[in-house]
């Protein structure tokens, strides 16, 4: 009798232990599957959100060139179908990891995308679409976080190399894509040289156009003879092959202590403010500078075309001094076009002290990259997806990172 009881007790104990063990093993498998399912759902959402961003112009369709916030968020160019993005919509996104600048004369803070000396895009903070607004318009707030990056597929890297003759300027242009150099690619370039004038006069400039090809390694060399080393210059090159187009630029200036900073003031009217650098960055030895501004568009044959700014001559000249009262601190000009292009402003203090600054009107005209949204680095699980897009003929890769804000576990 006692033996039977012990047998029952032992068997029940073993049975319960086995049931416990197996339920644990089964539940782990099921839990893993559930988490996988969640990750799969985030990946699907990521792809859907990316297409929603890229295949929808937003509402109103031309919101990017109106000073209002859209009621529906989208980045597609309303003039096109498929994955053509609006260069102005991208320009109105508040950059992630921004390093804003403050312009006291207008008591305005500007977002700052700077690619090098005199290659900047400053936009008023209060007219940009920020991350939280975009999240809300996309219906993602409090459920998903995202980060959108657009990177030019084609990089055109330009560097100065030692010339054969002392009066030459020799530039090496390396054109690479996302995974391979662009061998045998046509390269159209524009050489913009600033001619200083006597103090008080406005700087002048000359433009040369030409074309060449990259070699098997995606490299091309361009030599300019009779180059005056005391001159400021800007070199811009467009590389294009098989539908891929990229732009690169390189410049040097003889005078950096005072220069012109262009601030976008109004997207709708195309108003741009030209400010003195000392009023923004301070610095040593500030001086009065004269400027000469022009606006150029990229033609379909990859040459440039000058567009009138706010008068029929197409040129805007003036002078800027530092530390002035707000009424006299800056100059205004208006870009009267909805086509993207490049604002080129030459400046000079004297015949020898010259420089040139550029600003894209439409993010793609100088192939500026875009980073918009939250920070994915501290998230447990981030899904990503990519698309190839064109922004006003320039090829970009759009990458969206998306994560859940409602908690998502990770296996392993």
């Amino acid at each position, binding site marked *: 009798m006692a033996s039977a009881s012990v047998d029952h007790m032992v068997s029940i104990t073993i049975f319960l232990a086995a049931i416990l063990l197996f339920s644990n093993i089964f539940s782990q498998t099921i839990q893993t599957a559930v988490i996988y399912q969640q990750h799969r759902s985030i990946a699907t959402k990521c792809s859907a959100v990316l297409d929603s961003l890229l295949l929808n112009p937003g509402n109103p369709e031309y919101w990017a060139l109106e000073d209002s916030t859209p009621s529906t968020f989208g980045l597609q160019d309303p003039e096109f179908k498929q994955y053509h993005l609006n260069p102005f919509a991208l320009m109105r996104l508040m950059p992630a990891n921004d390093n804003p600048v403050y312009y006291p004369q207008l008591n305005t803070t500007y977002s700052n995308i700077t690619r090098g000396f005199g290659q900047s895009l400053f936009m008023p903070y209060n007219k940009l679409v920020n991350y939280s607004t975009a999240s809300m318009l996309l219906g993602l707030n409090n459920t998903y976080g995202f980060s959108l990056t657009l990177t030019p597929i084609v990089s055109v890297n330009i560097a100065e190399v030692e010339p054969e003759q002392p009066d030459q300027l020799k530039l090496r242009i390396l054109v690479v894509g996302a995974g391979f150099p662009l061998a045998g690619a046509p390269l159209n370039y524009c050489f913009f040289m600033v001619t200083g004038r006597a103090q008080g006069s406005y700087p002048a400039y000359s433009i040369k156009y030409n074309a060449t090809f990259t070699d098997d390694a995606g490299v091309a060399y361009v030599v300019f003879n009779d180059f005056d080393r005391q001159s400021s210059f800007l070199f811009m090159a467009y590389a294009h*092959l098989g539908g891929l187009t990229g732009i690169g630029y390189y410049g040097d200036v003889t005078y950096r202590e005072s220069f012109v900073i262009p601030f976008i003031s109004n997207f709708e009217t195309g108003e741009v403010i030209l400010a003195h650098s000392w009023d923004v960055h301070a610095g040593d030895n500030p001086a009065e500078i004269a400027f000469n501004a022009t606006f150029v568009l990229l033609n379909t044959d990859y040459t440039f075309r000058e567009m009138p700014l706010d008068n029929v001559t197409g040129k805007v000249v003036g002078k800027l001094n530092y530390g002035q009262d707000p009424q006299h601190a800056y100059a205004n000009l208006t870009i009267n076009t909805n086509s993207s292009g490049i604002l080129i402003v030459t400046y000079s203090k004297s015949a020898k002290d010259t420089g040139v600054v550029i600003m894209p009107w439409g993010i793609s005209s100088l192939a500026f990259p875009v980073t918009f949204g939250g920070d994915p680095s501290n998230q447990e699980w981030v899904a990503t997806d990519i698309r190839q897009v064109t922004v006003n003929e320039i090829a970009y890769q759009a990458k969206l990172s998306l994560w859940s804000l409602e908690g998502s576990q990770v296996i392993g």
Partner: protein
Amino acid sequence: MMRTVEVLIIIIIITGAFIASSQFAVLPWPRQISPINLRRLALTTLQILDSNYDLSRAAFDLGNDTLWDGLHVALSAALPPNVLYNLTIYEVNTSNPQGATLYNSLRSISNAENLGVTSDVSSYLATSSNVTFNVTPERIGEHSGDGTLYILNCSDTNSWWTAGYTSSSLATDLYNLLSPFFVNTIFVQNTSQLGQLLNGTALSGETFKNAVVVNTFGEAVPIPDGYYSSTGVGYDSPNNSYALYCYTLGQKVLQYNWTWVSIVGYPLYYVGNTAKFSNDQNGWGIYGIKQVGPAALNAFLQGLDNQTYTFSSTSITGNPSGVMYLSPQAVENCNYYGIYPAPYQTASRSLPTSIITKYHLNVTTKIFDTVDNWNPGAVYRHEITVNGTKFFKGGFLALGVTRTPDIRLTALGLLSDYKPRNYASDYTEYGVSRLVILQLGLLGGV
């Protein structure tokens, strides 16, 4: 002991069941859980490659190694380094005899022997460059349900300041230029039809509200006989003037939210009806027209602004010196719409900027640059306020240019203001097509 053995047997059975079920409950690879959408990546890559029709050219020029080398380089450069690809061109056999293959592989480029464990494909239809390139214009009003263009082509009205053209030829030219951009384009063939419109009755079932009405009669405007030329409605008997008709016209423009278009000269300077004014001439020997003078425009603007009618014969137009230049916006739209009028012209009937505040107008489009407070050509929108909210209701396009009229300026002004889009079709699918398949795979393990 027997129970323990039974339990052990049960454990063995459960273990067996677990092992057996595990064979079916296979968890996916991590790459399958959060994949890059290779199908979309392939499609967008094909679209990029064909953005300048290079892919289409290559698809129909299989022997051109230079073109194919460029395509190969571009494809390699466009994709991330860890992506494998295979691009193949297929010919589509449209006349497919029984048993023949539907697609023939023509040429292929790849960067790998095989595309790994996961791959996906997208297809793209390339069309020969021999086919017609099409531009499909967006139609004004296609989303809102209105979008009617009325062109006054009244057979019982003579025109003035249209020297070199007849109103009929101007109407035809305007039709050719603008009808693709409107949902409905309707010729108003006589003054009776104009009267019908003014009464708020559509001519052929179209939406007459929010329409554009173009007066192709230059400085003359058709006037219907009867009600609209009667005393107190169209005729101001104390002042012996048909300025009141222009006032009524302005009111109708406001009421129906029309955009009234004057193509040249002083707007509404004469009224015209060959039957009614058969014995009247405009002072220059053209019968069927009666001069109203500057009072007409003043009355029209009063009507547009819903002000009380006051007869005023003060001329308000001006003649700024020199030639007037197209505005930058108009110059840009010349390229967009492919309409190229002369970029400058004299404008001896320019409207003053003072009318903007006086009649609550907004200049929404400048056709010519403003010069010394004169607008040689512009689109004005009348602003009203309802419950504190401002709206536009009623519009007026006035081209104060000197004769002879250039109807392209009218078309350019309207298109610049309404901004309909031109949808450029990527190589239409008529004619020969070839199928391009891009298969993408990823390097590495699972």
